[in-house]
């Protein structure tokens, strides 16, 4: 069955089809040619081509039937030490009988693995180096423990250049017979912020209206996909209605399933621009930093973030009274 999501349908199959991340792709091509590769760590933002690069590399190495020698695990779904100890080990320890003497195991979102699971992984990587190569992908390489980093060749993926996003989107629009206007394309490119998956999903969403895609349509889809919840949250807290703010936060966490860390990141990026006393901003930044660390330690997202909102409500009330 043909892929219904365009981001899958048009995902490059071989390395030669990848147009961006030129340096990375060139190095990977050499692995495919020599049929030899080290463990790899792909670091970069979402939608920059990490998973695609891993899939393409496997395809170039093993050919059409690459699934036999290829396993993809999402570390954030299948995290934890038991998965590393069982699934990963099972796959890694059995050698292949083919031209290429190793298998590839892709661990996506490896930065979401606990430190303990990473240490377990490190041992497995060492023990089965002969039969299996690991490709770890992550957003931040800093969250991968040093011993693993030192065992991997590190590849840094950067957000796609605007022209690359434009070029990809244009091709897909043509193939799908979608009328994408020039302003629509510009809006799509800028809204995607170098995230090709987001660009393609937005295009597909916009095309479902069945009319020419202009700026307006693009922004409607973008707005639907990511409502400005954080801004609203901050506004309510700044007005001093803490209970309402907490309710909003709760619904974002529980009903929309947003991660506390993402919400915190967005709040943090707004702090310097908030209409509150300058000194309070420093306190808020300090509090946000502390909370970020606590969330990593596994603290309760709502309790921690609502303490930040209470700080903000206080800072705003001071601004009002001064």
């Amino acid at each position, binding site marked *: *069955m*043909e*892929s*219904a*999501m365009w*981001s*899958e*349908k048009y995902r490059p*199959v071989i390395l030669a089809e990848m147009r961006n991340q030129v340096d990375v792709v060139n190095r990977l091509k050499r692995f495919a040619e020599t049929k030899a590769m080290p463990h790899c760590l792909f670091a970069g933002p*979402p939608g920059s081509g990490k*998973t695609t690069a891993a*899939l393409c590399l496997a395809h170039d190495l093993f050919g059409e039937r*690459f*699934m036999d020698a290829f*396993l*993809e*695990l*999402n570390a954030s*779904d299948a995290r934890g030490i038991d*998965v590393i100890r069982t*699934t990963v080990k099972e796959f890694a320890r059995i050698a292949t009988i083919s031209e290429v003497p190793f298998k590839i195991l892709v661990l*996506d*979102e490896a930065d*979401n693995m606990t430190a303990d699971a990473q240490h377990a992984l490190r041992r497995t990587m060492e023990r089965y180096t002969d039969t299996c190569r690991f490709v770890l992908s992550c957003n931040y390489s800093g969250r991968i423990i040093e011993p693993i980093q030192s065992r991997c060749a590190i590849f840094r993926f950067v957000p796609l250049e605007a022209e690359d996003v434009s070029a990809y989107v244009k091709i897909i629009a043509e193939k799908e017979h979608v009328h994408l206007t020039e302003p629509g394309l510009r809006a799509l490119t800028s809204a995607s912020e170098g995230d090709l998956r987001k660009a393609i*999903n*937005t295009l*597909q*969403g916009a095309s*479902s*209206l*069945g009319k020419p895609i202009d700026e307006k349509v693009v922004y409607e889809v973008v707005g*639907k*996909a*990511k409502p400005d919840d954080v801004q609203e949250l901050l506004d309510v807290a700044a007005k*001093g209605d*803490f*209970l309402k703010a*907490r309710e909003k936060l*709760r619904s974002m966490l*529980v*009903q929309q*399933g*947003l*991660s506390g860390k993402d919400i915190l990141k967005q709040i943090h990026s707004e702090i310097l621009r908030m209409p509150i006393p300058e000194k309070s901003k420093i306190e808020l930044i300090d509090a946000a930093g502390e909370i970020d660390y*606590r969330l990593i*330690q*596994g*603290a*309760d997202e*709502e*309790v*921690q973030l*609502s*303490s930040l*909102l*209470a*700080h903000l*409500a*206080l800072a705003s*009330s001071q601004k009002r009274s001064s």
Partner: protein
Amino acid sequence: MNAPWTVKHRPKMLADIAGNKPTIQQILDWLELWEKGPPKKRALLLHGPPGTGKTVSVEAAANERDLDLVEINASDKRNRDALEKTVGLATRQSDLFGRSRLVLIDEVDGINLSEDRGAVDTIVRLVEDTQVPVILTANDPWDPKIGPIRNATTMIEYRRLGLRDAVPYLKKICQKEGVEVEEQALRLIVDRNQGDMRSIMNDLQVLTSGRKKLTYEETTWLGFRDRRASIFDALKTVFTSPTCLQARRATDMANVDLDMFFEWVYENAPRQLNDPRDLSHAMSALAQADLYHVRIDRTRAWELLPYALEMETAGVAMSKEFTKPAWIPMKFPERIQLLSRTRKKRAIEAELGRSIGARCHISSRRAIHHYLPYIKYILEKNATEGDRIVKWLGLSEDAAEYLGVTPTPAEESTVVEKVEKKRAKTRTTAAKPRQKKKTV
């Protein structure tokens, strides 16, 4: 509107009081005797556990018989001089308008021997000479310090309320308040509070606040059995204690699960503390307590527990500085309710995430953010395209229904699609991650 139910629904008439009917009749008979002059024993000592209706029956009796009620309780100073001035005067003179009088000395076992010096002797003397009926109450009549009072009075015992008395009474209250509470829930609340009507009413008010219906299951969240005080009292301690030591006792008072206790405090702090300065401090203390709880979970270092408990009790109590006093009812932790209400929704979203993730090489958590909003949008705007996506994802009926899609009749899908669908289904329901197939 927000008055405590213990005040709002306090019985005004004897017939309105739940339970202890024969006991109440005894009081009435004794008051009847006074019509013909002072009887042999001029005072009654009503004794029994808290919340059984001792004080309220005296008040209702006075109201019904139009007696002038003079009341002294533990909050008044009760040394010899003070008692002489109030009770002494009341037992000798009648009301200005010639109304008969009734004197109530509440909680006599709460007399403090050093602060209320001479109180017991004074009471005994007043009771022996009184010209008007005197009623005393006590939780523990066998307290040695009130021995002389026992001898000077007729003792009448109040018993704990049983289900047969309490449940019909509570049903009436619920009806008046316009809330529907399952009988089983009422029974549980009565049981847990061991027939103490005051704390039953408090719990009932807290549990039903802001809702029209209360089920048995929701009531079980309260989760305490060998209860010493209600969670209500413990929270009151947290939000009103002037000292750290006093606030710290809150966790010992309510025999609630500690996680649940945290949720209660966390839910109510912003309601009880109405000044942003106080609230900011309190929320910081709670966030700090949460951090200690996490460290305990992670390291199993239970010796850290006191720090967590002290932050969430004393830390919150000491935050109160600028808050204006007000009586605000305590609320049941909404977060717990929300989590249980949205459990199904979250399960379906997780399934959607897994289905999308299996097809799009992404974790379920991220799939929910990177794909689901677009898919929802497409479904909303373009049914044909949306249907194609739903089929491709091989969603279960539940998930498709959640997305607002009516499941396609089986004969419409081809055999290949059916097999595909079945396979996708097993893939999404399997606990272990499986090898993902690349779709080209």
